[in-house]
């Protein structure tokens, strides 16, 4: 492939990665916007959900890449898998909020964040101990269709991923801007006490935020599995780092910021891997994270981030 084609390919890869990171970052930022809480557990909810997705697909009799579906059955299978995964992920998120985080709401400082570190650990190790350390082959019913695009290859899975991501993002945007509960969420994020005095049930809003955020993580997890054809107990860490950086880069607490940040980080990862060695990608991403937090904490699209209270 010539140079242009290489870059085009990396662009395609980057956009797919970006879609995934955007969804993951969105879920994270939804919770942060309301509670100002950095939820470490979010990224292992992502990891656990990839297993939910795997089991949902296996329930349909799909395993590995042996069974290939097209057309309506494919759509049906994917729809089923997404619904199941996202619902289970959402429930997991709500359970975490109820059991571990609600009691911490009154406590000042970083105590709640530390608790999420603990929860994250628990999820990680439960999966490790029950499922084992080896990567699992992910069921994938998508046919191996691809198109040539100026020297690069565009696969069906990429198109599907972009499509699903766009649908989810549009759906979320509509929910947040049009629905009653969605507006209540925005109101609570902007001024929780005033929201309460409008009669908004802040507890319900928080639970909704956790459900939605975790459901989005579930969607991202299923996408991960379908894209890479594997999952394992460690995927939370690496994807989490990138999604977190994406959320911060885009502006923590901002929905459009998470989307923008996700795409940028996805592109950086694929192009960065091309230009430098892949092993330095983590360092690059961490450096971006540190630089943004220190020099521009409000990110690209966020409001002024809170510094010292």
């Amino acid at each position, binding site marked *: 492939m010539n140079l242009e084609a290489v870059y085009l390919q990396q662009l395609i890869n980057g956009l797919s990665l970006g879609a995934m990171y955007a969804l993951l970052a969105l879920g994270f930022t939804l919770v942060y916007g309301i509670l100002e809480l950095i939820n470490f557990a979010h990224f292992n909810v992502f990891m656990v959900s990839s297993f939910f997705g795997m089991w949902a697909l296996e329930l349909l009799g799909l395993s590995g890449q042996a069974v290939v579906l097209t057309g309506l059955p494919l759509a049906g299978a994917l729809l089923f898998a997404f619904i199941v995964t996202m619902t289970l992920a959402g429930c997991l998120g709500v359970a975490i909020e109820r059991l571990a985080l609600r009691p911490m709401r009154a406590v000042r400082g970083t105590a709640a964040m530390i608790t999420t570190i603990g929860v994250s650990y628990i999820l990680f190790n439960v999966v490790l101990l029950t499922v084992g350390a080896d990567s699992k082959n992910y069921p994938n019913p998508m046919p191996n269709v691809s198109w040539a695009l100026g020297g690069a290859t565009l696969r069906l899975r990429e198109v599907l991923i972009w499509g699903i991501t766009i649908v989810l993002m549009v759906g979320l945007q509509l929910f947040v801007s049009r629905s009653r509960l969605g507006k*209540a969420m925005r109101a609570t994020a902007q*001024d929780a*006490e005033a929201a309460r*005095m409008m009669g908004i049930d802040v507890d319900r809003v928080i639970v909704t935020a956790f459900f939605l955020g975790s459901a989005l993580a579930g969607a991202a997890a299923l996408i991960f599995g379908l894209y890479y054809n594997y999952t394992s107990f460690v995927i939370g860490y690496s994807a989490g780092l990138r999604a977190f950086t994406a959320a911060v880069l885009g502006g923590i607490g901002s929905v459009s910021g998470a989307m923008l940040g996700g795409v940028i980080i996805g592109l950086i990862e694929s192009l960065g891997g091309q230009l430098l060695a892949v092993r330095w990608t983590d360092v690059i991403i961490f450096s971006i994270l540190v630089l943004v937090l220190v020099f521009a904490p409000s990110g690209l699209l966020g409001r002024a981030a809170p510094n010292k209270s």
Partner: protein
Amino acid sequence: MLAFHAVDTYYGDLHVLKGVDYRIEAGEIVSLLGGNASGKSTTMKAIMGVVTPARGDIVFEGASLLGVSVAERVRRGIAPVLEARRLFPRMTVYENLEMGAYTRARGPEFDADLERVFSLFPRVKERLRQLAGTLSGGEQQMVAIGRALMARPKLLCMDEPSMGLSPALVEQVFDIIQTINKQGTTIFMVEQNANMALSIADRAYVLQTGQVVLSGPAAELRQNPMIREAYLGEMKVE
């Protein structure tokens, strides 16, 4: 319509409201006056349910409000206009109004109330799609009142409506408050600006360090020199 019976509230171990009694009859404009740190804001918060009295009772339309959630109070007909407006800055004017009606269903009543708000505040209708945070102070105050009216309240609780507004705007706002009152809404107004408040109120209470030191018809209070002492913090050891 609303009554406080010997209400005590605490902030930690600080005794803020000390056995206060208020009475607000339906259809009145009652103002709560007082200087710095007198407990005015806490009174508002106690009515809305954000602060819970340690002792005493708050009764609304014959039913006690103790243990009643904030949302339920809004449903029963108490709506707040918050201190410094506190609109949702990154939501549009229309969305802010919608939030005011959060506890109510959509339908013809909602539309009717919206029309009412538009007729009271034509400027609000003009700025409907604008983000609330970009409005001027006076415009925000209009939206804040409108937002409260969208709950179709029986009792409108206003916390320092004159704060941060120019004198001309304050006049406008107080004009509107009188209009709303004539349309049938009872008004309870916490206000630092005694002059303005007494010019439209029917009755008033004066708070000083958590105790009611003066009360009565506004006309009487206007002539009472003790108000000045209460405001300037000349302490009366009761």
